[in-house]
């Protein structure tokens, strides 16, 4: 098991390190990630959603469906734990 773990970890590590060389440098404001979709969020979020915190604006508005999904994940976890562990009570 340990050798397999080491081999797979090394493979993944190699892959990641090979890929990371191509990432835009830290703090690079020309990076595509900063200039495409995020640009609108930063410039327009307040005008469009009246929310100064951009993170909240995206979380609860632009991508609010993701957040519904996230909430459902946690609900799922709750029901899953209930299903697995609860002995007393009605459920």
């Amino acid at each position, binding site marked *: 098991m340990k050798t397999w773990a080491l081999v797979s970890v090394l493979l993944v590590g190699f892959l990641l390190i090979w890929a990371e060389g191509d990432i835009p440098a830290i703090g690079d404001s020309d990076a595509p990630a900063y200039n495409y979709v995020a640009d609108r969020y930063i410039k327009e979020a*307040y*005008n*469009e*959603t*009246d*929310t*100064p*915190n951009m*993170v*909240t*604006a995206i*979380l*609860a*508005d632009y991508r*609010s*469906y993701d*957040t*519904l999904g*996230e*909430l*459902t994940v*946690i*609900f799922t*976890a*709750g029901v899953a*734990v*209930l299903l*697995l*562990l*609860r*002995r*007393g*009570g*009605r*459920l």
Partner: protein
Amino acid sequence: MKQDVVIRTVCRLIVPFIQIFALYVIIHGASGTGGGFQGGVIFASAIILIGIAFGLPDALQRISEKTNTLLSCTGLYIYAGIGILCIIFGGNFLGYSFIPLPLDSAATRGLMAEIVEIGIGITVMAVMTSIFYDIAVKEDM
């Protein structure tokens, strides 16, 4: 642990503050750091704190399993309900601006985001508490 008066007293003192703080975090999410999720977790930790300090029955008295179930669904209903409300008023799912409020589109969106955040807070609080109950409770309870 139940004998530890200091802990219990301190708990009794700080739990309301934690809860108020949690509410603040939920409401404050729009303008500053925070949001429904963080607030919900903090609220849950307040209840968990009671559970640890006074024993789980005490915590259960404050928020029973039934309330938990109800609340966890309520939050989700609020969220999905607003989404469906938008459909009813002719928008797409979660298209807040279609809800006919006497506000401009951006303000409506902001308001709805707040409500949604409250929904998130309720559900997260309830589910986190419920998970903690389930994990911490021995089977004889």
